[in-house]
């Protein structure tokens, strides 16, 4: 009897493991977008920046043979893409929505071009953490201590961002800039510089999320491989009403349903595959909308200047 229970417990371990890896790209991209939006900038180019990160990360890893270098390249590429956006919207005051959409289209095209020669190539993936003793604890050991390092980094960065926003001085300044750029300017904060920093961080994280996809989650390059994850990251941030804890919950929920529906498809349930693939996207948004309906909380957490251009009067 106990053997039976143990066996059934052991069979759920791998899906839970993959659930976390499915959630991690979203954790990265959504964290970056959260910080970016909290500063009052709406960057709809997340999908594009993730694709750029994914392809440059993969190409670097394929050329150098080092997945770590690949991740670094992914992050830098994502950041450079976001800087294009920052110059256009913050310096030249172009419309943030249109520019963000353009960045996504640009990223899709550029990644397809760069990645053309890498389709079908494989690379060595980054291994999982193995902590002596801890990782050997039955069930719990693998679940808690057996992931690849990026899973932990992602959670750490997200929780760290939550702490940064609510408990650090610069986090407070960042929220202030997103709440009222005019007031922040009147008090004497460099609004544009702070937003540049927030947008670059957003790009860095989106790039890293993309790199995680092409280097660890599925170590290969395929055109448009983010499959809308950039968009879901954007939706996560908004529907989680800009709260890091809910972003993490939403990301894990998305990861969980993704894996569950893959398993269900493999098990041959008689439900159309297209419907199953759509499930994680719909379910994540519905659940987050339902738990974040408090109008006052939304008003407190939503950056009031989101998407508005700011020009300092001189």
């Amino acid at each position, binding site marked *: 009897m106990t053997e039976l229970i143990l066996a059934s417990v052991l069979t759920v371990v791998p899906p839970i493991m993959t659930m976390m890896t499915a959630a991690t790209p979203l954790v990265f991209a959504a964290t970056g977008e959260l910080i970016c939006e909290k500063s009052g900038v709406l960057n709809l180019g997340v999908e594009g920046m993730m694709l750029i990160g994914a392809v440059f990360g993969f190409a670097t890893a394929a050329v150098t043979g080092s997945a770590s270098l690949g991740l670094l390249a992914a992050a830098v590429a994502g950041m450079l893409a976001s800087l294009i956006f920052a110059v256009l919207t913050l310096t030249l005051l172009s419309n943030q929505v249109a520019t963000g959409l353009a960045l996504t289209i640009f990223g899709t095209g550029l990644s397809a071009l760069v990645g053309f020669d890498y389709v079908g190539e494989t690379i060595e993936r980054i291994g999982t953490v193995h902590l002596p003793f801890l990782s050997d604890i039955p069930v719990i050991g693998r679940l808690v201590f057996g992931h690849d390092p990026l899973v932990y980094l992602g959670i750490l960065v997200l929780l760290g961002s939550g702490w940064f926003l609510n408990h650090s*001085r610069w986090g*407070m*300044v960042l*929220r*202030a800039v997103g*709440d*009222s750029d*005019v*007031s*922040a*300017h*009147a*008090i*004497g*904060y460099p609004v544009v510089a702070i937003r540049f920093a927030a947008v670059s961080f957003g790009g860095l994280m989106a790039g890293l999320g993309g790199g995680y996809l092409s280097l660890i989650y599925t170590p290969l390059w395929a055109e448009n491989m983010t499959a809308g994850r950039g968009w879901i990251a954007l939706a996560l941030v908004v529907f989680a009403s800009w709260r890091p804890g809910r972003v993490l919950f939403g990301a894990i929920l998305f990861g969980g349903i993704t894996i569950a529906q893959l398993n269900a498809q493999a098990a041959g349930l008689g439900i159309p595959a297209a419907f199953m693939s759509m499930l994680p996207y719909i379910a994540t948004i519905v659940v987050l909308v339902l738990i974040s309906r408090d109008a*006052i909380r939304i*008003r*407190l*957490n*939503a*950056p*009031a200047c989101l998407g508005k251009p700011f020009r300092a*009067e*001189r």
Partner: protein
Amino acid sequence: MTDQPLLSLKGIRKTFPGCVANDAVDLDVAAGEIHALLGENGAGKSTLVKIIYGVLRPDDGEIRWQGATARIHNPAQARQLGIGMVFQHFSLFEAMTVLENIALALPREDTSVLRKRLRDTADAYGLDLNPERHVYDLSMGERQRIEIVRCLLQDPKLLILDEPTSVLTPQEVDALFATLRSLAAEGRSILYISHKLEEVRTLCDKATILRAGRRVDDCIPASETARSLAEKMIGRRLEPIAHQAIAKNDSVTGISVSGLEVQSDQPHGVDLKDINLEVHGGEILGIAGIAGNGQVEIMGALSGETGAPRAGQIRILDTDVTHLGPVERRLLGAVFVPEERIGHAAVADLTLVDNSYLTAAGRMKFSSHGLINWSSVSEFAQTVVRDFDVRTTGVDALASSLSGGNLQKFIVGREILQEPQVLVVSQPTWGVDAGAAAAIHEQIQKLAKAGAAVLMISQDLDEIFLLSQRIAVISQGTLSAATPVGDATPEDIGLLMGARHTQEPENPRVPA
């Protein structure tokens, strides 16, 4: 006090595209002096103080601080020199707490130390503030207190106050003046912008008067009259407005409210309890009260924005409107001027023509068969601009491009020119200069004289006493019975306003 002025401006010039905001302005502020800066809206007062505070850069001219030439590039630098400023348009962050708002302006302070200093300063100056409250659910008066405390915490040598008393009760004003006088006695200078000339006369040692961007006069306010100051400001003789006895017409009941109970939809709002009032044709009923005592709720209930009340009945012109929305109430002949100019009374990013359409469409029949007749809307907007002396580049200017006083004139004009039988107006002259305020008062009187029922909600007791025939006081969501203006004194009303209100300082403590 030394001979050398603390701050000295020479030949300051600042132009914006299309207008000269300041031209050859000289200003000397001595240490320990309370110096008034007077002028109409658009005279360039705000531009000048923004230059002093480093928000704007002058095109020409020199700023000397304690005798040395100073280039003030940004507010942080101004604060370092010892210049503090309370803005007219608050520089606050709505989604953040009072404490965070203050901490943002004091970068080198530890939060726990700051919390204590905030309490000490707030207590010392009788400025009640809860550091954990979020700004968005504070009243205008409470928001201003944050600005003042935030400045005082920076220990400034020069404190610039832009229209600081417009939202305070008489008792609070007295407490503030005591504070300002003791700050001046400590050797600090105060640059005081106000449109309340009586205040300037009692408080200020010197006054500099600006008109159309130029300095026109320096004077000692105590040896002038309010009238002579106002005339210097506007450059012509001013006809005084007197309290007018208006023939009340009891046969027309403009507004009748009985047993009204409203649950506030504002966070930390005030629920209305058993409100009863009646306003007849030809009468102005004034509702006095400190901000945040139910004024927003009463305005919302009367205009129909907040939906059906919990109990009670509202009748406008003998029609039960309890369950009608704002559009239906407007069609019956009632118009409304809410307190917030931008975002509630007018849309900042729309032109004056568009804004005219928004509230006047129904009564003025601006559309037919689903199409808008823009030429008649534009004509209407032009009439408002002309009749109410709105200073603007034209009716196609954005609402946000108008100064506060001019936008207020436009908004009041837009409603009055619809020839309503009922006007409900909240804080009609908040942050508006003397000339514009007089014009608005005159128009409200004229409307009542023509037979309309007017309900005016205001914190400004001068205004309440000048215009109203009867006065009621709102405090913590309950409305007192209305007293005829002849039977009430400002002191009585002031005390009623502060009744059961914690921030009422019993003995305003003045720091030594």
